[in-house]
């Protein structure tokens, strides 16, 4: 009976593999699920089919689904031959799906459960750097990067260059930008690195204030008050909000630039192998 069930599952698997090779990914995903369903006690086939199903999702850019499919694997019953590749794909898909916390967890789990599996730990080192970068754990990322450089016989000075920003990441405090703009319109934006926006904000507020004051001086009290002062206060409070939002945006840009440089380097090395 068991032999018969296995042959059914294997038949499904063969069919799924052929669909995958023909790049019929949607059909292949269901076909692999069919093999998973039919696998019963054949744990090797079960895990192989799950891995292949994850590949179909990865091929269509559906990294979250690929990650979730790989989460269905069971470490206790998975054959050792698949363990490495399943772990690799799990971390990779988590990273590609933007699930950096999950990727970090998978990496920590690997180092904790298989501290002697240096081959796999080294293989995943480049992803570890990228994940730690995204989580802004730059000190850890630098350490990983130094290990990575040593592993690829590259000069350690590269790490100092690529992580030079740690000493002064020039990330600005959005709260401080708010406070600055509250007392000195436009200065919060300039502090956050948005000089143009700061000058425009300052100019608008001075202009409106001037217009209001001039009208009141000329005896046009209502116009001075409503067009000058009322609009001034709108831009004043708007400027405070803008100082904070613009600083947050600028910080994100800086982080993306720091990480992007390291990512480009690491992927060049990986691609060159």
């Amino acid at each position, binding site marked *: 009976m068991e032999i018969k069930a296995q042959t059914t599952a294997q038949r499904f698997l063969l069919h799924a593999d052929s669909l995958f090779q023909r790049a019929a990914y949607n059909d292949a995903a*269901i076909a692999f*699920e069919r093999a998973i369903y039919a696998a019963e006690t054949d744990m090797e086939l079960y895990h192989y089919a799950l891995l292949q199903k994850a590949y179909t999702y990865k091929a269509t850019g559906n990294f979250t689904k690929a990650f979730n499919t790989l989460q269905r694997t069971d470490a206790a019953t998975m054959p050792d031959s698949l363990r490495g590749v399943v772990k690799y794909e799990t971390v990779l898909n988590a990273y590609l799906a933007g699930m950096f916390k999950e990727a970090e967890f998978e990496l920590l789990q690997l180092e904790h459960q298989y501290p002697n599996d240096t081959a796999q730990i080294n293989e995943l080192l480049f992803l570890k750097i990228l994940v730690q970068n995204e989580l802004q754990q730059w000190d850890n990322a630098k350490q990983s990067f130094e290990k990575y450089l040593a592993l690829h016989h590259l000069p350690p000075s590269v790490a100092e260059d690529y992580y030079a920003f740690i000493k002064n990441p020039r990330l600005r405090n959005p709260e401080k930008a708010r406070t600055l703009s509250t007392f000195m319109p436009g200065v919060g934006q300039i502090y956050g690195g948005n000089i143009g926006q700061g000058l425009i904000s300052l100019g608008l507020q001075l202009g409106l204030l001037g217009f209001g004051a001039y009208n009141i001086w000329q*005896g*046009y009290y209502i*116009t001075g008050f*409503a067009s000058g002062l*009322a609009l001034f206060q709108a831009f004043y409070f708007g400027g405070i909000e803008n100082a904070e939002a613009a600083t947050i945006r600028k910080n994100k840009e800086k982080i993306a630039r720091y990480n992007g440089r390291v990512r480009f380097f690491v992927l060049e090395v990986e691609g060159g192998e």
Partner: protein
Amino acid sequence: MTMNTDRPPDGLWSVVRVVSLCLGFMVICQWAAAQVSPTDSLYRQEIDFGQYLLNSQQYDDAALVFAKLDTATVGQLDKSQADSLHFLNGWAYYNLKQLLPSSEQFLQVSGNSTKYHASRFFAAYQLTYKEYYPQAAGVLNDLYLGEDSLLAELRSLQLSGNVLLHRNYKEFEKHANGFTYSYYQLQKEEENLQKAYHQLMKVKRRSPFVAGLLSAVVPGLGKVYAGKPKQGIASFFPIALLGAQAFENIHKRGIKNGFSIFYTGLFSVFYIGNIWGSALSVQIKQQERYHEIDHHILFDLHIPLRNVFGN
């Protein structure tokens, strides 16, 4: 004479006959089992797989498997097989919130199926949700419920919600008069529908014309009348300020001065725009209220279905 001695005694003979009959029957059964048509085995395999997908909440894949099975076996399934397939397919679409394809599948489940009533009720609910009120009522009214008083009351509940959403208050009263409030699965929802009915009756029918007129007298007053007091106050101040500036400039600079023309123009645009906006806000407010009540009605129609049909 020798025959008589060779022949087993009558009691034993009958046992042999019974045994041989049984053996023959078993052989026939096995032969019949071996004669399962390829359609049957395909059907069994795909239904099992589809149910596994449903159980593991892979609804989109389940729907795809059922749809493929449907096209592969068209005209070859017996009635009960077709019923199960349509029901499961409807269930997959229901979970995907594809309400019309789901109704289409549910409505193909025949009267012989144990899932017949569930299918019809769910189909009718989904048609109601999609605002096909007469069609949904038709499905419910055509149901044969026999002696089942729970289902009869469930039908009254569904019909009353249907007509309430359709704003047919007379019909609602007719259905609601039949509510017994005696079934725990329906009691709360019956009360809620009564509540919704009273809320609908209380939704104030205000005139867009009056709102516009009020806003012409005092900018923003029309919005207060429509039931949006904050918006009314928020639109009063800018218009009042613009008006005051226009007045000041005309008064001090003369009507032909550029500033006067600019402020008078700006004031006029906002003033007229606000009148128009106030007239519209009457309808917007009313629709918001209707939408909120309708949402609750649909919720109260849905819950009893899950309670009664146990899913």
